[in-house]
């Protein structure tokens, strides 16, 4: 059995995931509203209750990669005349790097 379930769900804020959820199954959030969820009954139920859409790992990875690629492009395009590389990093943070889902 696969270790994880992959899916997309919109974080609606308070109550979206609880301390009890975190104790009951593995849960990590990634860009593009992608969630990696421990593959047990409670994890699967959580995704369903959050109106989530289950994805294959490759589909989820593609969503994350697309979001990171867009963030990289935005980072490259966000330039201020006369600004040094260090100043840019202070202003908008380091350039996003690729994320590989577990």
């Amino acid at each position, binding site marked *: 059995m696969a270790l994880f379930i992959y899916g997309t769900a919109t*974080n*609606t*804020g*308070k*109550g*979206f*995931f*609880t*301390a*009890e*959820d*975190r*104790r009951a199954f593995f*849960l*990590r*959030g*990634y*860009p593009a509203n992608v969630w990696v969820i421990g593959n047990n009954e409670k994890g699967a139920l959580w995704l369903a209750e959050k109106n989530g859409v289950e994805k294959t790992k490759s589909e989820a990875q593609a969503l994350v990669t697309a*979001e*990171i690629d*867009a*963030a990289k492009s*935005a980072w490259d395009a966000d330039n*201020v*005349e*006369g*600004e*040094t590389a260090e*100043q840019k990093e*202070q*202003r*908008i*943070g*380091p*350039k*996003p*790097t690729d*994320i590989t889902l577990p």
Partner: protein
Amino acid sequence: MADYTEIKGNRIQYLDSDPTLTSATEGQVWYNTTTGTLKGLSQIKAWSSGGNMGTARRFLAGAGTQTAALGFGGYVTGQSTATEEYSGFNWTASGNLGTARYGLAGAGIQTAALAFGGATFPGASLQSATEEYNGSAWTAGGSLGTARTNIGGVGIQTAGLIFGGQSPSISSATEEYDGSAWTAGGSLGTARRTLGGSGIQTAALGFAGYSTANTNITEEYNGTSWTAGGNMNVTRLGPKGSGTQTSTVAFGGATTAPTGSATEEYDGSVWTNSTSMTTARLGLGNSSTSRAAGLAFGGTTGSNTAATEEYNSSIDTFTAAAWSSGGNLPSAKRSMGSSKGGDINSSLFFGGDNVPMGAGIPQLNTTEEYNGTSWSGGGNVGNPVSGTTGAGTQTAMIGATGYSFAPSGPPWKTPGASYIANAFEYDGSSWTNVTALPTTGVGLNSFGTQTASVFGGGAQGGSPGPEASNRSTTYHEYNGTSWTSGGSSNSVHGRTQAAAGVLTAGVVFGGVSGPGARGDTLESYNGTSWTEETSGLIAANGMGAFGTQTSTVFAGGSAAPIPSSPGTVGYNVGTYNWNGTALTSSANTASNHMYTAGDGTSGTATGFIGGGSSAYASNTTSTEEYTEATTPVTTASTLTTS
């Protein structure tokens, strides 16, 4: 490998039953001979989601506690002045910073905070400005001796501390604030920027950050000088912290990737790994002075995030208040009345409208009964009615007021139309007209029983349409036979179902208070007179309510004018609990319910709201059921080999 006896100096106790569980029991292990299980008591550490910020941003600062926090400044698409207050459930906008900036630090509490340092672009212009927040607005404080950004900052409004950062070179400088001016303190042992901090001015902690590379160094400040503490397990840039010098939790920041989720706890000498944040991020804000109750918000995951996470570390477990789906109404409706004195397993709705707001008032005469799972049809009201209200139970209640016309009367908005004074009782199967309320009315609020109820407020007298000129503070009492005058409220509470209780102990909250205005006042009724209890948390109308005078739940409605166009602007999903002393925020509803109604009980039991307008152009069949937060319970864990 050492066994338990070698480590603890004694053997595991054999007990007939679990010991009394207190903080003194934490860390103990025992064998329960009755259940045949090895048990222990340990802290439960976990992150859970909080309400999303209104403005997603990075490199912001924070202050306050997990349930009363402040987030301010940061970088959106440019430097920001935005300030938001967190209630433990929702973020709401507050007064803007005077100086937009990112990379700043914060200190203090939600009603007495401090913002200092940071930078603006272009050119990463370093900021020395300090600003003080009083719960609503920022005013200028004394300027930093050295302008800098990506700093560490801790303390309170009258005793702040800044350390490290870039000015523009990486700095070891420390400055102390006394409420009006900054003076030099002892320098960090290792100059760093983008470091984390916790504690107070005379007992602070600075950890991690970037010197010539990312570090895991910890230093402790005693009000005069910095000394070395234990190194963090995870080297990183830009973690945030919550707690004191000897009891801190650190979280987030960049590790080997641009964003990290690692969480560690410090006990004054050693850092221990804890459960990771759910969403890795850098440039986040933080608040709280407690290791057991941290708060992280905003930051970047590659792009700006509005997500909030709450960290809790406790030997107690409890379940937070929550809304869950109930049975759907047979058809969507709004502006109906409800029994208000029943419970979640036995209640009803009657009357209402089934057209979008602004499309007239073609009233309904239907009754729907709820059994805690599903709705079924009851007896029809004699005359269609909307904007109405009721009191009592599913089998013994009274309804009164609302837009209702004689059967042969003209439709709503017909020039010269007049609506009728009314009252009608339900016996569990059919409605019977009874002695009419002494006045016509719409949007009144009510509570009580069929033989001892209170109806009032809203708009009384006159014809439909000129509601604005008929807003009333008058209340009427019903004894099962006739109506008499009750006390007058101090404020107008119109177009709301946000009332609950019994004749001698009622409560009403918010409602329309004037043209285009919503009230924020909560008043109580003792059977004779009204008393203003509190105000200021939120101004809303069209909410539903259930409970008693000292344990009431209010939810839904609108917190701002709803534009005359399709959309959901102005709708309120917040919930507010009144305990007889204080009004506090609770869990959000899943969907919008404007001109909703509800019923239920208080204490550990539950209630519901249902129907209402879910968007300007539509109403909803949705029913949501509320479960209160449970009292914290200390539970021992069963230890297994798996």
